[in-house]
């Protein structure tokens, strides 16, 4: 799909628990990092694509970053909000801009100042939704936050395919294995089954250790035409596709099935000319442990009803047949909405993942989701153009 444009720079900043985040400052910091890796000055950027994130923070990025960030005259400036798929969609857009000659160096940037000292992450996310429409009715019934929706989704999946706490534990413990090898991960100690089962239930069947770990932080990539003297290997976009299935609150059709996920995945792979066997690793947007189970089966990477056992057998872990979420994912690593899987895929493909490096990683699929498994975006990223 893209022989010329590539991800040439990556920036990442994660706040510590006592840091007071500032979305714009973090954004400029990571854009600067990404530009240095790409071998350009921040003033060389002529495209700025802002990942709008309206999850919970009042302090979020907007188009105003062009002004507050001191950017010059840009040839492309826009912000997009497509829930958890946004960053993946914007990476594709950045590649298209550079490929078309409409910009030379495009930054895609995300910043989230959601977590501030003294405010528990779970409580912050439970306030999502507001008082209007269906969300208002749901709040009046005590349905609070994404975890309640994903708990219903998990119940629906288990009813259809079978599943248990052991399946969820298999995902959580595998991702903890990866996290133990990632110095940036927020939970790095091995996860015993007893510890998992002692973790408080939030909404059955999901426990606290089934939930992502929100952080405040920022990430950026720069997309350019690679230079011969680049300090880091370029990562190419070999295929990409999206699907959005409107989630209706009436029959027919399920409220919870991930319709469109496989179509997006297969279309992106077809563009890349890859079979599923060609994949060296997969990075799945994992707000909760049940999501990798659902998506691996939906995408045809694992037989239906077998994902939990597949995880338990070590297939997704270090040295496994198909490494998944190799930085610990958003559950044991860190949750930056939609960005975490892209950052990890780029890190692996560059060969800079340290102790968790997947040997010979050349082809990675990023499987992003939005909303309640209703938006789907796949990026096929590779070291070969």
């Amino acid at each position, binding site marked *: 799909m893209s022989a010329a444009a590539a991800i040439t720079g990556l920036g990442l900043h994660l706040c510590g628990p006592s840091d007071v985040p500032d979305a714009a400052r973090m954004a400029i910091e990571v854009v600067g990092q990404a530009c240095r890796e790409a071998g350009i000055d921040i003033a060389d950027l002529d495209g700025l694509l802002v990942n709008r994130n309206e999850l919970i923070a009042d302090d979020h990025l907007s188009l105003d970053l062009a002004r507050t960030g001191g950017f010059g005259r840009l040839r492309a400036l826009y912000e997009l909000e497509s829930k958890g798929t946004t960053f993946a969609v914007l990476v594709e857009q950045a590649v298209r801009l550079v490929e078309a000659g409409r910009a030379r160096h495009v930054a895609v940037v995300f910043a989230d100042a959601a977590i501030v000292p003294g405010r528990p992450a*779970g*409580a912050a996310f*439970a*306030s999502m939704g*507001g*008082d*209007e*429409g*269906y969300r*208002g*009715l*749901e*709040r*009046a*019934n*005590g*349905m*609070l*936050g994404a*975890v*309640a929706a994903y*708990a*219903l*989704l*998990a*119940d*629906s999946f288990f*009813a259809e395919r079978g599943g248990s706490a052991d399946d969820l534990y298999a995902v959580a413990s595998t991702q903890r294995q990866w996290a133990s090898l990632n110095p940036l991960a927020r939970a790095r100690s091995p996860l015993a089954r007893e510890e998992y089962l002692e973790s*408080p*239930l*939030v*909404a*059955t*069947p999901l426990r606290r250790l089934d939930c992502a770990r929100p952080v405040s932080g920022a990430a950026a990539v720069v997309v350019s035409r690679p230079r011969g003297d680049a300090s880091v290997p370029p990562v190419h976009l070999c295929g990409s596709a999206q699907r959005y299935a*409107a989630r*209706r*609150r*009436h*029959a*027919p059709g399920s*409220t*919870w099935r991930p319709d469109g996920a496989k179509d997006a995945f297969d279309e992106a792979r077809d563009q890349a000319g890859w079979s599923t066997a060609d994949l060296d690793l997969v990075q799945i947007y994992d707000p909760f442990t049940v999501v990798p189970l659902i998506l691996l089966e939906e995408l045809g990477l694992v037989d239906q009803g077998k994902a939990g056992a597949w995880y338990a057998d070590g297939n997704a872990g270090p040295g496994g047949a198909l490494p998944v979420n190799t930085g610990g994912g958003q559950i044991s690593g860190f949750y930056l909405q939609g960005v975490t899987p892209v950052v990890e895929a780029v890190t692996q493909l560059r060969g800079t993942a340290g102790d968790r490096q997947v040997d010979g990683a050349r082809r990675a699929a990023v499987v992003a989701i939005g909303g309640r498994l209703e938006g789907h975006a796949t990026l096929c990223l590779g070291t070969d153009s």
Partner: protein
Amino acid sequence: MTPGPAPSEHQDWLTVPAARPSRRAPLGAFLGATDLGELAVPFCRHCGKPMDLDQVRCADCGATEAELRRIAPAGRVVAVTVMHRLDQRYVAARAPYALAEVELDSGHRLVCAAERRDAQVPVTGERVELRLVQVGGSAVPRFRTPPETDHDEQPEGPAS
């Protein structure tokens, strides 16, 4: 369906008044009906298919006119969870409580908690009825399971 008691006479067992839903569109007409003890939901005026409360164009025929119709407050459970996190900003209960996604016989789906504190956790596929309770001055639907149903699981005991 019987209207719930006036707000001043009743404290919901589950949620606090701050959990009240907005009465602005798209809930205004829906809550106007529940004020009268009725459950009324939108259907396409052209093809008659069910529509979401906030849907402005029918996905089946493309028509842009919906009409609210009174429906029977009965359906079946399609998914269940028990909420263990008790967010005191909105929840008065001090013990885990069940939530059920109910597909009404009309085809519309709503996520509801139980009408009563001591209700048993429903199971997927079970028939339930909807009743109305008052939350901050608005009547909102809750599920009621048939009294003869046997269940294996119950939420932890009611709050003292």
